[in-house]
């Protein structure tokens, strides 16, 4: 009897002849993520991936936690594998059920059996009925409920037989590294980490750019962004964080541009800097957490003006989402609690009381002329700190 982990994927099925490219990338990513837990053997069979370890100290629980965060994996099950011998199957079923009853105080169950190996003497319905009956005989207090059972015992008979009761939903998406590289404008807020995650989910590698305004904002704000990047990197294969010193640019804009336009102009500078960084790293798109109408700089008119600062495509995965929907995802992926820590990433000194909500591109360009944009941007890029997470 072996304890192993079963990994299922969904969308990779649809990849036809390229399926093995995605499968292999997924396996490579899994190996990387489980590397420090011990020696593992990863095999694929019939569009599933099996992970096992001969290491007695292998932390299965930790492995499962990490697996549920790997893009490309649809669900994970801790599985017991036995020979396809009915006596063994019966005995193992009893062990599993007994353990479940103690841990979760279940009262009802059902058996779902699938017979993949046609040489096995019983067919699926027979297997369900017989095994179910056997379990009832050993646990007289249990009842069968085929509609809404407290637990399901899954039995898959193939070359070996796999028994499990948990199907743990995982991050889904496509394996990181199958989609290219994108550059995320990351602030300490709730939205941008979620935007980054949603793009990463499609197999895209992410690098992040954070604009730091010390001493107007504290190093705690920077720590917060580092923490958010670390949380995101649990889902990807590492994230490069570029910390761009933004104080000089902010002060220049504040001193020389009309008050209602400072936010829009700041955002244009951020986009330009992000695009420069993207160009250097071979990234194919920028990613932001913008959503229509959320704040003054995110009206359609404003986004038109900020977008025209760059030529790279800008992905805005949250564009049509409500704040509540974004918060739900933030909580699910674990960034919410860090995002709501009070360390501001933009000092309120630099926020106009009445920012323009329908800026004109023409006026914006006029106002920007007084700034030595090239020099400001180059200075910021030269002093950018890169942190590998």
């Amino acid at each position, binding site marked *: 009897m072996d304890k192993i982990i079963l990994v299922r994927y969904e969308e990779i099925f649809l990849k036809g002849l390229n399926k093995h490219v995605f499968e292999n990338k997924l396996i490579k990513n899994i190996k990387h993520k489980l590397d420090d837990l011990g020696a593992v053997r990863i095999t694929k069979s019939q569009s599933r991936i099996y992970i096992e370890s001969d290491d007695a100290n292998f932390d299965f629980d930790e492995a499962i936690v990490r697996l549920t965060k790997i893009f490309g994996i649809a669900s994970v099950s801790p599985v017991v594998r036995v020979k396809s011998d009915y006596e063994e199957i019966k005995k193992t079923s009893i062990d599993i059920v007994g353990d479940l009853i103690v841990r979760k105080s279940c009262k009802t169950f059902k058996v779902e059996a699938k017979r993949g190996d046609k040489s096995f003497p019983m067919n699926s319905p027979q297997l369900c009925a017989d095994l179910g009956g056997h379990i009832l005989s050993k646990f007289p207090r249990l009842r069968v409920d085929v509609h809404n059972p407290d637990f399901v015992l899954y039995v898959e008979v193939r070359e070996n037989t796999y028994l499990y009761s948990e199907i743990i939903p995982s991050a889904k998406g496509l394996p990181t590294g199958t989609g290219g590289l994108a550059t995320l404008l990351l602030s300490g807020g709730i939205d941008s980490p979620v935007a980054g995650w949603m793009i990463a989910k499609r197999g895209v590698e992410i690098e992040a750019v954070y604009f730091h305004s*010390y*001493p*107007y*904002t*504290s190093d705690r704000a920077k720590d917060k962004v580092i923490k958010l990047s670390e949380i995101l990197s649990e889902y990807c294969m590492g994230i490069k964080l570029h910390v761009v010193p933004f104080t000089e640019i902010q002060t220049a804009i504040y001193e020389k541009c009309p008050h209602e336009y400072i936010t829009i102009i700041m955002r244009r500078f951020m986009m330009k800097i992000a695009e420069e960084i993207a160009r250097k790293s071979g990234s194919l798109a920028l990613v932001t957490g913008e959503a229509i109408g959320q704040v003054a700089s995110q009206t359609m008119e404003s986004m038109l003006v900020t977008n025209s600062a760059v030529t790279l495509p800008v992905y805005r995965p949250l564009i049509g989402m409500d704040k509540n929907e974004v918060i739900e995802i933030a909580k699910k992926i674990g960034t919410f609690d860090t995002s709501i820590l*009070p*360390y*501001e990433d933009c*000092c*309120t*000194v630099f926020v106009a009381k009445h920012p323009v909500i329908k800026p004109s591109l023409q006026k914006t360009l006029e106002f920007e002329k007084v700034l030595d944009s090239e020099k400001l941007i180059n200075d910021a890029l030269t002093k950018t700190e890169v942190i590998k997470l």
Partner: protein
Amino acid sequence: MIYFDNSATTKPYEEVIELIAKLMSEEFGNSSSLHALGLRAERILEDTRNKLASTIKAKPEELIFTSGGTESINMAIRGTTEVLKRSGKHILSSPVEHAASLEALKELERIGYQIEYLEVDEYGRILIDDLKAKLRKDTILVNIMAVNNELGTIEPVYEAAQIIKSKNKATVFHVDAVQAYGKIPINTRDLNADLISFSSHKIHGPKGVGMLYIRKGTRIHPLIMGGGHERNLRSGTVNVPCIAGFGLAASIKTERMKEDQEKCGRIRDILIKELSDSLSDKIRINSPKDGVENILNISFKGKKSETILHFLEMRDIYVSTGSACSSKKNAISHVLKAVKVPQQWAEGSIRFSFGSFNTEDEAVIVADAIKEIIKIM
């Protein structure tokens, strides 16, 4: 480095650090152990108790050691109500107390006590007439700090004690002397308080240690139960090395109190003069002229205090603020709110607090730094 944040915490005296290290290494016994090692630790503990008692003219048995000011305050407040709950539910305090007092009182309010707060003037000083007006025969506890940590205001605790005791001897008077000890004289023969809280790390002693003075005859219920240490009033293995450090720091500090305070006064005056001369109506001095000399609270009009703090830290100068940058608008300290400092001033308030190691030269450097910073901002 220029460290002007001594009201937050202080750097221990070198001799204190040496003493603690020596005792941790050589006298690590548990003062409750029956063997010689324990006995030696106990002797050190009791010697320290005597030493500390003499600095406030108290009897050694009137002192209990705790983990710091916050614990002492909680012990005083909760310990008193537990004993006097049948006598009444009325408690008086002030709105400028430290969070340790305010939160302990809030908790009592939650379980049915009636907390009333005294009126204060523009420096946070309680109005004696209001104390007289609000005191009742069934008031069980009055809780007032001797020196306010944000503004440096000295509260009239000696006078308040007389008033409280003439109304009703049984009303317990607790004085929070955390910021007062070593800065103004605390004399338990003149100060008619029943309970007084002290902290070690504000007077160049180690963190994690404090004491509670409990006047002979005053009963309180222990906060922490266990092995019965400190006459059953505060269980937990006694931190002898750090308490000894506290004792040494206290004797050094109280001895140099007068000269330290005079020097702090000069440092304070330099800052006030330099800043007033260059920034005149752009600054507001929130501290009273007759407050303790080691605390100076100044507001800078229309500036954000946390930004000033970070600009100063870039120059290796450390201070504290009366407000924290936050998306929540109510990030202004409760003390500044209570004395009604207008919002645009309150958001730019900085607290400079001096200690034994600061010098007048430092004051000049800091004043110059501030002038530069305000110009840039």
